[in-house]
């Protein structure tokens, strides 16, 4: 976190700042929580046609995927799994019948995954039947029980969500009192800030939301959202998508003013839609107890040993042989150009946004009506106009206090829905970072002969054969996946981790099969018969020549050394050669600087002469 970093500032503070930059939403706002409330009635266990999994099985797979993704992406979030309509009961005070709390609200760990695995598939259904069974249903009791789960949590919860998974649009068989109780309890929950979602599953004859559930679930975020009309989920994929869309609370990285000039300001929230997921950093543990240990860093005076407080230290850099000293505050002040915010410079046609002007992953902005009312309207007008005219807005962007400015392109994106009426792209502007002059390097282009039409056409055939539809979420990060599989294996005492499928590897066999003779035909067109593209590039003298030279020089004779010393030509030798020579003559060198090595050798030689 930022505050701790203050103490490590002498390292590469730039890099760390970046982490913070992309890390973003770690504000002190408490933890997110999610309760899965799953119907365990007989209907849920009916298998679909053609051996499709039952609704219950589908739900469990979905829950499992949320659990694992929580473990990876937000391990502080709390998750609970509660069944209702069960025969058996299990809840904290056992005050509710037919409600089975499978997992209490807690951050999910390895054991939870194992528990859920028990409920998967055919065996899972049997296991569920044995442990919980199906019985009477009272959604009211179930909701009440859930509200107790929330209230038993000592931690501050920032976002509370409850998802009901069921395939029954009517729960209490016409028992009005039970219906009423469920409504009241749902209302109570909603009043305490819990958002209730319905993940309704297929039911023969169609799921009628208006029968009962329309009064249970939370109203959609805005009135135009067609929340309840959506079709029930038929496929696991749909269900997962829908759950995932709801499960993550979107949180802005920061809220900023977007100034068009002359006091025309709107408020926007800045969001991170894509950010490189990295392996979490390791935690230090005490060897004996596996207890986590904290690190404390302090500075002390080298001579008197006194602890140095921040005020006792200054910052320095050396340039032109001079040390230049500044206060910590001054170092910060240098980075300050203006207050945080977005300032509009003007507009440019989209074709002025160069593909290769890329230095960082993009951000996303969306209006913040709660900060400045009217922002949304103004924002929408800008969005519509820019996208109509195919323009982007150029802005100066200062994300935080004491941060130097960057220029960004705001690229408009209008909302798009996919076939299932779920939002595929949200409305707003993407924030694309633009490079300064310093960020563009001078590359000496290699100029060579170009291909003939025939050669190009052959390549076109190859390209054609290997076409596919790119989707941004098609590739998993094999490094992360492997890491978590390893952890999983260790945590769950597995013999070895589950193998991962590395999607980043080319499917060579399939590609070869698709290409058939094309690859050879292309090679015949562009390469002469004796050409081997896989051979080491000829122009690599450093590796080949360097190694040979090294070998030759290792055996530097005493005579040679004498000569070098006499003629003062030791300086012409390279550091590795000198080092080898030192080793050869048994001189222990402390330094690695060239001059130190030369000095050592010279001294040795002079000693020899005396002897």
């Amino acid at each position, binding site marked *: 976190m930022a505050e701790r970093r203050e103490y490590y500032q002498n390292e590469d503070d730039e890099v760390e700042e970046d982490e913070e930059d992309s890390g973003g939403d770690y504000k002190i706002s408490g933890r997110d929580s999610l309760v899965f409330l799953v119907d365990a009635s007989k209907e849920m266990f009916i298998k679909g046609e053609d051996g499709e999994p039952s609704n219950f099985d589908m739900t469990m797979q979905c829950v499992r995927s949320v659990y694992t993704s929580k473990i990876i992406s937000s391990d502080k979030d709390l998750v609970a799994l509660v069944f209702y309509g069960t025969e058996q009961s299990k809840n904290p005070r056992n005050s509710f019948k037919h409600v089975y709390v499978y997992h209490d609200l807690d951050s999910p760990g390895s054991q939870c995954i194992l528990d859920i695995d028990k409920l998967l598939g055919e065996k899972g259904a049997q296991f569920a039947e044995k442990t919980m069974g199906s019985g009477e249903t009272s959604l009211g009791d179930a909701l009440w029980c859930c509200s107790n789960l929330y209230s038993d949590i000592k931690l501050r919860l920032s976002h509370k969500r409850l998802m009901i998974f069921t395939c029954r649009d009517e729960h209490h068989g016409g028992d009005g009192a039970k219906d009423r109780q469920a409504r009241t309890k749902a209302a109570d929950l909603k009043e305490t800030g819990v958002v209730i979602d319905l993940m309704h599953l297929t039911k023969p004859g169609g799921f009628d939301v208006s029968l009962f559930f329309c009064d249970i679930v939370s109203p959609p975020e805005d009135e135009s959202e067609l929340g309840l009309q959506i079709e029930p989920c038929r496929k696991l994929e749909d269900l997962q998508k829908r759950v995932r869309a709801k499960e993550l609370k979107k949180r802005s990285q920061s809220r900023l003013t977007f100034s068009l000039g002359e006091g025309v300001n709107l408020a926007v929230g800045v969001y991170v839609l894509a950010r490189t997921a990295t392996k979490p950093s390791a935690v230090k543990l005490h060897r004996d107890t596996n207890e986590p240990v904290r690190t404390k860093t302090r500075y002390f005076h080298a001579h008197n040993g006194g602890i140095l407080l921040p005020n006792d230290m200054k910052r320095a850099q050396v340039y032109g042989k001079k040390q230049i000293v500044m206060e910590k505050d001054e170092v910060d002040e240098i980075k300050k150009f203006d207050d945080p915010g977005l300032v509009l410079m*003007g507009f440019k046609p989209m074709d002025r946004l160069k593909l290769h002007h890329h230095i960082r992953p993009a951000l996303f902005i969306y209006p913040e009506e709660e900060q400045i009312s009217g922002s949304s309207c103004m924002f929408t007008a800008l969005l519509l106009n820019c996208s109509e005219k195919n323009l982007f807005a150029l802005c100066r962007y200062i994300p935080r206090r004491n941060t130097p400015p960057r220029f960004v392109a705001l690229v408009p994106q209008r909302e798009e829905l996919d076939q299932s009426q779920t939002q595929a792209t949200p409305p707003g502007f993407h924030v694309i970072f633009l490079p300064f002059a310093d960020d563009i390097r001078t590359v000496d282009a290699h100029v060579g002969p170009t*291909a003939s039409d025939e050669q190009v056409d052959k390549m076109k055939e190859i390209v054609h054969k290997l076409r596919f539809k790119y989707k941004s979420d098609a590739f998993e990060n094999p490094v992360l996946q492997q890491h978590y599989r390893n952890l999983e294996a260790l945590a769950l005492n597995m013999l070895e981790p589950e193998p991962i499928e590395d999607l980043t590897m080319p499917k060579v066999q399939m590609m070869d099969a698709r290409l058939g003779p094309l690859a050879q035909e292309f*090679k015949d067109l562009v390469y002469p018969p004796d050409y081997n593209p896989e051979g080491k590039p000829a122009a690599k003298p450093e590796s080949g020549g360097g190694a040979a030279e090294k070998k030759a020089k290792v055996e530097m004779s005493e005579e040679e050394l004498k000569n070098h010393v006499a003629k003062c030509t030791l300086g012409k030798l390279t550091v590795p050669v000198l080092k080898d020579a030192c080793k050869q003559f048994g001189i222990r060198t402390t330094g690695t600087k060239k001059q130190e090595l030369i000095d050592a050798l010279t001294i040795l030689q002079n000693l020899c002469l005396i002897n």
Partner: protein
Amino acid sequence: MARAAKSALVLCMDVGFSMSNSEPGQEPSFEQAKKVIQKFVQRQVFAENKDEVGLVLFGTDGTKNGLAEDGQYENITVHRRLMMPDFELLEEIESKLQPGGQQADWLDALVVCMDLLQEETMGKKFERLNIVLLTDLNVQTSADQLDVIIDSLKKARITLQFFLPFPVDGEDRADGGGDGPGPSAAPVRPGKGLSRQQTQGLEMVKNIMTSLEEEDGLEEVYTFSDALQKLSIFKRIDRRPMAWPCHLTIGSSLTIRIVGYKAVTEEKVKKSWAIVEAQSHQRDDVKRETVYCLDDDNETEVQKDDTIQGFRYGSDIVPFSKVDEDQMKYKSDGKCFSVLGFTKQELIRRHQFMGSQVVKVFAARDDEHAAVALSALIRALDSLKMAAIVRYAYDRRSNPQVGAAFPCIKEKYECLLYVQLPFMEDLRQFTFPVLENNKKFKPSESQLSAVDALIDSMMLVEKDEDGESVDVFKVNHIPNPQFQRLFQCLHHRGVNPDDPLPPVEPWLKRDLERPQAVSARCQTPLQDVKTKFPLKVVVKKKEQKTSADVFGSSADEPDAKKVKVDEETEFNLAEIAKGNITSVGSVNPVRDFCTLIRQKTVSFDQACQQLTHRIEQLLGNRSPEYYMKSIACIQAFRDQSVSSGNAELFNSYMQSLKRSVPDRNLQELWDLLIQDALTLISKDEVDGSTFSKQDANQFLAFEQKEEVQAAPVQEDTGDVDDLLDMM
């Protein structure tokens, strides 16, 4: 690794008396030339390349050069031989470079410079030898040696640059050779005002330059003012990209030899700040120590060797040693650039570019077969509007990426542009409420047309006379202001160690503003937008949040919990009966503290000391989760102090806490204290207090740093540890 090519350069400046003359209202040529030299050396110092610079002055009162003999080459001083420029040189220029009272032949000075260059570069390798002459040419020169001089310049491959107070031929020619942005607005002085010597000198300059470099020669003649403008920009950080040789593979049998270069990447300041001791300014006086400790009450220290590493797996922490990790981790099989398939360019969204760089991929150098093969791929992709999706791994140790290689065909060359694309784990699918079909936010026709007009007035791409569109705000031509500002401040501090930092340079500020023409044009449309769109800052009904709102026990949680919390904070009779509380523990410090005070098992001072110790521990965690607990402690501390009528301990603790806020980054905590109005105990509450009610109220305000220092009492550098000792 190829060593960066370095150049040797001699600055040769005329300090003769004519240089000090100036027309009224004009800066003397001497001052202008001095500034040019200063700015130049400054740039060199901060660019930190290996270039060596010498300084020769002519027109000096004294004579000091290797050629001076028998009255020849008089009044020419080699001020500094070839060396890497440093602050010493900057300081010398600042303080010691004074106008001389003599005149010297600039051709003689040129010969001295040539001699210096040749002598000093003997046996060293320089890519470029250059002499920069700054003079007003206002001196009699003997042209008889001119041909010999030109010849030896050519032979030694020394290049020349002239900096003059006036343009070389009436019209402004200086805009050709510069590397910096910005229009050249050199005041053009008419050639008529020149003296006879100057006209003659100018002819000679032209003669030399054209015979050295043919037509382009005159582009190396600059005016002082033009040079100053260009030099005021610190050199951009120029790095030679490293070549990355690899093979592009399609399937198992098709391979093309390629080389990649990092073409665009965010450049960072090369140097970081070192920590030095405030008095001695010595780096070695500061020692850093990191200790490991258990998260228990005593913060038991643990040796580093006794720690192992583990990873969080949800709520579990899995011990996972480095050795095991290395053995089990994903292993990539070395560098690669393997095509996974081809896809339509439009399916790759610009905003999903990941990573921090763009790599340009060429065919291996001097391999024409590879060039043809790659060209076929580039052209095929270009005509099909497709891109290759590739697996990219820099080397064996680095993580593999999936990215896109786009075709790029320029007039002079062809290449692939590689950009990293996201992994599934990198993406966050957020859903946002509808905007354009939302009745509440839908802009009216008149609003839309107002924005339309605004956009038209703010276009940064304009058509010039020839109908070509010109970009008037090219970000990729602007130097990174962060570096410019940093170097400006470093230079200023280096030369004037005791001065405050200078303000941002005006040109730099201007670079970051909307172009003036655009600003002027958009005035009216902006006013129109302002009237048509009601934008109002929302004043929050509940502006002030208390800490209870921020953390836990908020209103939206069931009362059941609140009761429980209260139970806990109230001291518990049963606990007292047990009489087992002897010190303030970390689990429930508030309860322990209250109990101790009531039981009077330890003195009030001791109880307070124990409590503040716990508070410090809580704050030391720097985890905001602990703020709530800390605040509860402070609240209890205050309450108990008021009821015991002892304000001193609390007040002094609060003062020291306040002093440590900036350094410990506790602003958030302090804000919460403000919201809870947890201020000093005033006289009104406890007689012994030295603070009036007003003092106490003002205490929490934390606007200016000065205020903190102005805070009364205890002038020493108040630290919590001191305080603990004191108690």
